[in-house]
């Protein structure tokens, strides 16, 4: 079975023209216009066009999966769209050992978990202090200071950071956690402060009348209330830390401590024709994020929308 002609060029064209008809149709149906004859077919044609676009989205993922399960003999024939025949897991076995997957996974996991936890705690701490003491100059200026990083892309400060982390023994996953957290901080503080302002101060005052200290108030009352924002902040931090290539590749000096995305460059230099091994390795590196997404779709979609609009 071969479906070679489906290449990105034609599909891209489909995406544009398809969405075009979709837009005009959908407004007629979506806007509550009186029933027309073509309405039902219009609805279906939009659906069909969107399904075709969705195929474009899924195609590279399908190729990754089918290549990963091929034998090395079948993988080199250049036909990316054929199904594996015979079905083989040799690629996974080899990739597991070549990239030392368990170590890579552990490193990625440490970096991601560390960045997520650090970002949520540091940003919610700082945001709480800032919002509750907005009338004090120190806190107000700190807010704008922290926000400043939103305008500093990593490449701008990367060279001195590489040097400094090297000098202070932070050229490892810990250094990446620290830097990744700092680059997530401004955006996260912005989200938390916006949310904190919407929590009525009376709620807190009643807790304080009962004798709670600021520390207790934060952990028992404020932090639980922040949960939806923490989820949004956490999702952004997760996606960044798990998928990033640039920062770990530059900061972590010991190849054995590299995260999964960086380990994949093995297949660009050596083993570059073992396609089944390479794709099995890609799949193993991508799968955790995709699986996590499938379980938390709603949260991710809502979180990203909310985050992007507030930021």
């Amino acid at each position: 079975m071969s479906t070679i002609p489906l290449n990105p060029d034609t599909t891209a064209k489909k995406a544009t023209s398809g969405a075009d008809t979709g837009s005009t149709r959908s407004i007629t149906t979506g806007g509550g216009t009186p029933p027309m004859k073509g309405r039902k077919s219009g609805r279906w044609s939009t659906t069909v066009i969107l399904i075709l676009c969705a195929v474009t989205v899924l195609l590279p993922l399908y190729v990754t999966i089918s290549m990963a399960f091929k034998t090395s003999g079948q993988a080199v024939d250049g036909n990316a769209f054929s199904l594996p025949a015979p079905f083989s897991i040799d690629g996974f076995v080899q990739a597991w050992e070549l990239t030392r997957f368990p170590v890579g996974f552990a490193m990625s996991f440490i970096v991601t978990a560390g960045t997520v936890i650090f970002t949520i705690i540091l940003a919610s701490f700082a945001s709480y202090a800032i919002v509750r003491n907005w009338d004090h100059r120190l806190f107000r200026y700190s807010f704008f200071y922290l926000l400043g990083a939103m305008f500093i892309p990593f490449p701008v400060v990367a060279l001195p950071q590489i040097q400094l982390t090297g000098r202070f023994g932070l050229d490892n996953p810990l250094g990446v956690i620290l830097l990744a957290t700092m680059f997530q901080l401004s955006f996260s503080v912005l989200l938390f402060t916006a949310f904190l302002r919407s929590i009525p101060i009376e709620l807190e005052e009643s807790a304080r009348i009962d004798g709670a200290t600021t520390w207790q108030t934060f952990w028992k009352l404020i932090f639980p209330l922040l949960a939806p924002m923490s989820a949004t902040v956490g999702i952004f931090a997760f996606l960044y830390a798990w998928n990033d290539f640039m920062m770990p590749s530059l900061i972590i000096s010991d190849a054995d401590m590299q995260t999964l995305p960086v380990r994949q460059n093995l297949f660009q230099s050596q083993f570059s024709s073992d396609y089944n091994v390479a794709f099995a390795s890609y799949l193993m590196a991508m799968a955790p994020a995709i699986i996590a997404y499938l379980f938390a779709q709603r949260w991710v979609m809502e979180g990203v929308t909310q985050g992007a609009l507030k930021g």
Partner: protein
Amino acid sequence: MTATKSIVTGSGTGAKAPRSRRKIDPIYYFFLFPAVLLFTLAITVPGIIGIFFSLTDSIGIGQWEFTGFTNYVAAFSDPAILSSFLFTFGFALVTVIVVNVIAFMLAVGLTSKIRFKMGLRAIFVIPMVVSGIIIAYVFQFLFQNSLPAAGGALGIPFLETSILANPDLAWLGIVIVTAWQSIPGTLLIYIAGLLSIPGDVYEAASIDGANSRQQLFGITLPLVAGYVVINVILGFKNYLNAYDIIVGLTGGGPGTSTRSISMTIIRGFQTGDYAYQMATATLFFIITIIIAVLQLSVTRGRSNI
């Protein structure tokens, strides 16, 4: 940015002003301190060090001397740097347009009455959770092996050689992969925008006899204009920093035809042009600031979002 504005106005509503001399619970300093300290050490200090060394002839280690603005003058007349700036801006511009046009149309489709609405939305968001460098490797394989094979089978000479090997076309591959990955985020914002338009606006328009095209340009687009601005500015800023996808797809080649600003700066570390590339980084930083100011001034006026 709306947050900033409302906080400022929020504190201005009286009542709080007299409290400004009240005693602050010391624990608040403990809450604020770690973030500010780490931020200073991790970003501010490296930033100042970088700007400082951009005025020297340092190669990253060893002795150095002040050279004033020599690096900046040299950078302005360096064809390698100029071409990477030109490439990056051109790439960012094209990508912003492609991504926003496709994402907007998809959003209109996905908010209309269709089957499998939630399932389709879920699929369209998937690329956002996929690592840029890995998907770039996958596309690299498709561009280098599958597309030429397909071109050969169909007898289309244009496709027979990999577009990534063609200095004039390689950027197109980068645009396609970047678009594939960043359409979801843009799409979600447009969906939020479209859902915020009340349905009776369209009802009124159709009673007045507006056709669907008129409704699109007369109602939908003006009402989501704020979302378009957000998407364009956020996208442009992201694409200017392009690194992962280019490294995975072309490595900056063929030659230096697809080398982005980020890649140029990073290479300075490997080739010993430390101070020189810090000058490039500083210039890049200034440009980013200009865009950020633009972003602030545009989004501040839109508190309705």
